[in-house]
């Protein structure tokens, strides 16, 4: 199916990489959301995942490693009519960018955040990321990993993020559905996506994930915090995919009365508006 989000040309991804099905799911979701390319902005960091805006027809801000989130917040403040998607790797998001994740969960800006979690640093050739499992060995982690793996879903639920989901690129339709739900959710929506790296992660392969991944049942109560907290702890043996936790709550926008009227970017400004402020100094 040719899509208006299709961008022709070569990618820098390896044949067989999990980024390809992820892109398919993303395009499908954007189509089904009936968005136009110019209405979508993708903000990314640096890494293999972060090259996405070069391979799909949307607006893109491909910024610095670790800084995929902050520019997205800025864009969303500038223009409330845009669908803003943050997209980056696990290293970029959970490593270098950890502090932004932490605080943007608190900020609850209306964003979709897709993390290509291949449990490895792809672009820099296979060092451990925060999510790399203890059993892995790499060129730098010659002993194995010196720290406990970071668990994104558990972390985000623990932080009471307003929408937390896990997807798997081996379940494209399901993933597209998650992305759509994230987009429709009002507030910050994190989707951690299991994405095999065929070049550098020889542990967490398609098979490894397939053996463990299962879809949450239809009657799963994503709105119940305690349920979510328990579910968020599952990993290793069985890995749930789906919306783990969801809560409608105050967003960043609710703090500013003038933000919902008209996109800031469309508001005309004139120097003379400061005239009344000068009175205080007279």
């Amino acid at each position, binding site marked *: 199916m040719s899509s208006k989000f299709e961008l022709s040309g070569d990618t*820098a991804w390896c044949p067989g990489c999990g980024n390809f099905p992820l892109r398919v799911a993303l395009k499908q979701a954007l189509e089904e959301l009936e968005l*136009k*390319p*110019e*209405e979508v*902005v993708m*903000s990314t960091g*640096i890494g293999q995942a972060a*090259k996405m*805006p*070069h391979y799909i*027809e*949307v*607006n*893109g*801000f*491909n*910024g*610095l490693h*670790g*800084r995929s*989130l*902050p*520019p*997205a*917040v*800025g*864009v*969303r*403040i*500038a*223009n409330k*009519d*845009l669908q803003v998607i943050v997209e980056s790797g696990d290293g970029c998001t959970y490593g270098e960018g950890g*502090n*932004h994740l*932490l*605080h943007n969960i608190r900020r609850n800006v209306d964003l979709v955040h897709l993390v290509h979690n291949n449990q490895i640093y792809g672009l820099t050739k296979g060092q451990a990321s925060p999510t790399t499992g203890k059993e892995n060995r790499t060129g730098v982690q010659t002993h194995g990993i010196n720290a406990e793996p970071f668990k994104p879903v558990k972390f985000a639920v623990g932080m009471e993020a307003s929408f937390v989901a896990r997807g798997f690129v081996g379940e494209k339709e399901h993933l597209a559905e998650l992305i759509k739900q994230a987009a429709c959710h009002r507030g910050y929506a994190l989707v951690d996506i299991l994405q095999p790296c065929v070049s550098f992660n020889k542990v967490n392969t398609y098979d490894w994930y397939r053996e463990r991944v299962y879809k949450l049942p239809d009657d799963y109560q994503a709105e119940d915090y305690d349920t979510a907290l328990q579910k968020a702890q599952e990993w290793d043996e069985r890995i749930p995919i789906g919306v783990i936790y969801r809560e409608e709550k105050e967003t960043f926008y609710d703090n*500013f*009365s*003038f*933000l919902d009227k008209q996109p*800031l*970017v469309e*508001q005309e*400004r*004139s*120097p*003379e*508006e*400061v*005239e*009344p*402020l*000068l009175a205080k*100094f*007279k």
Partner: protein
Amino acid sequence: MIKNIVIGGEAGQGLKTTAAILGKALFKNGFNLHTSMDFMSRIRGGHNFGRIRFGDEEIRGPQEEIDLLVALNEETITRHVEKLAKDGAVLYDEAVSAVENSIVVPAEEIASEVNPKAVNTVYVGSILKAFGINLDCARSVVEDYFDAESVISDNLKLLNRGYEKGETIFKAPEPKSRTGEQIYLNGNEATALGALAGGINYYSAYPMSPSTGIMSYIAGKQDEMNVVVEQAEDELAAINMAIGASYGGIRTMSGTSGGGLALMNEAIGLAGLTETPLVVANVQRPGPATGLPTRTSQGDLLFAVNSAQGEFPLLITASRNQENAFYQTFRALNLADKYQLPVILMSDQFLADSSTNVPDFELQNLEIERNLIAAEDMGPDEEYRRYEFTEDGISPRAFPGQLKKQTVLADSDEHDEKGHIVEAADKRRRMVDKRARKLDRLIEDDLAEPEYFGPENIDYLLVGWGSTYGPLREAQSRLNEEDIKAGYLSFTDVWPLPTTGLEKLADNEVELIDVENNSQAQFARLIRQETGIEVEHRILKYDGRPFRGEEIFRRITEEVIQ
């Protein structure tokens, strides 16, 4: 005639309020004045003081010799009494035997009868009395300054008591009617107002002295001015959010001090490579590392000029005083948009925290120039290219969603005209050249040459940049008064360095004197780097304190002229 008041006490004794009310009262009374603050990095205790210099002549900076020393505690006397003028006076709550003129006002005792929290207003009353200045001006300030009725009436009462208990020692200068409408504000406020006049819709920063005042001021006007002020989790977030907002199409700004600028460095390069307009105020304090957090310095010059790895066009401009801070900020926003580059706006604690009277801002002459592409500039089948090659290197800028059926791609990797990653040698070269051409154009069309002050024929040329302007003008006038033929070249734009004016003046006959608030004569180094001109004399100060005009004058006569 100019008079100089110093008020000193512990942090937490309300010095800021006293200085604010007194300063504003003197301003309302028609004086010229300059108020500067010397704070320690603590909330209570220690020793803080403010200097208020006022009179009927132009006043450009602080002065050392004290006419009236107002001591909120004994330490103030010990620390400052040696700078008391021959006919100076001390105002304290008991008699000070060591000095001739001692005004005794037991302010706490007086206040305790009405409202102990309002003790500072007692001082204001007594100070005005010392100069024989009528209280009317102060009354209206008190009414403005406080909100609650009862607080206002307590303060008015104490103002009177202070006046009554005080004693007139000095003949006050005659307030002449100043030229035109004036306003009284500090450098941070002026910068914040320039940003608001420039139409920013977003300001993100992380608190850091002495820059926080910019953020606080704007934060107080969020709803009035439709500006989102966001205190970020760290400086990395602050700057990257601002860059995102700018890419999103609104005007944005950030502010910090040196350590924060260090953290922002990588992102300044990002703004450079993605050609995203960005203005960052760097309000300097002495470094490196934490340094002296509440004091002043011009130690970040070469650091700012050489921001970030790699090479990209960048504009560094420094405000010379409160009035200029407003217009520089406004201009920085326009130039950032026009040339699609980062601008670092240099200020420092001295400028940021000092208040003075300046001519009311001329808003009607200002124009916000966004320099965005208009939809009609695009051909019907043309694909929008964010980094289109043009003669002057400036590509048409659109924000996402602006143009129908067009996407806007900005990239931190080297890229082609559309914004996609490239690695080919010739493509890289062309993009580097394209970006560099923007600066050539800026130099030609917009770079501000330094302003020259002084006689036509000179033996000495003082050079300085930014906030040393006031003290340097004062020093230069003093030199001229003593028949020393000295001129002064005051730089605001420092990178790219404007060289024409300097090269014209710096002929062989003239001795150059660099005056800077740092230890390495960074500006003199920059001048030599860019022009080959060696500035032979250096008057440097790097103890965290601002220059005073008389001090520069004295040091020049001692160290240079001899």
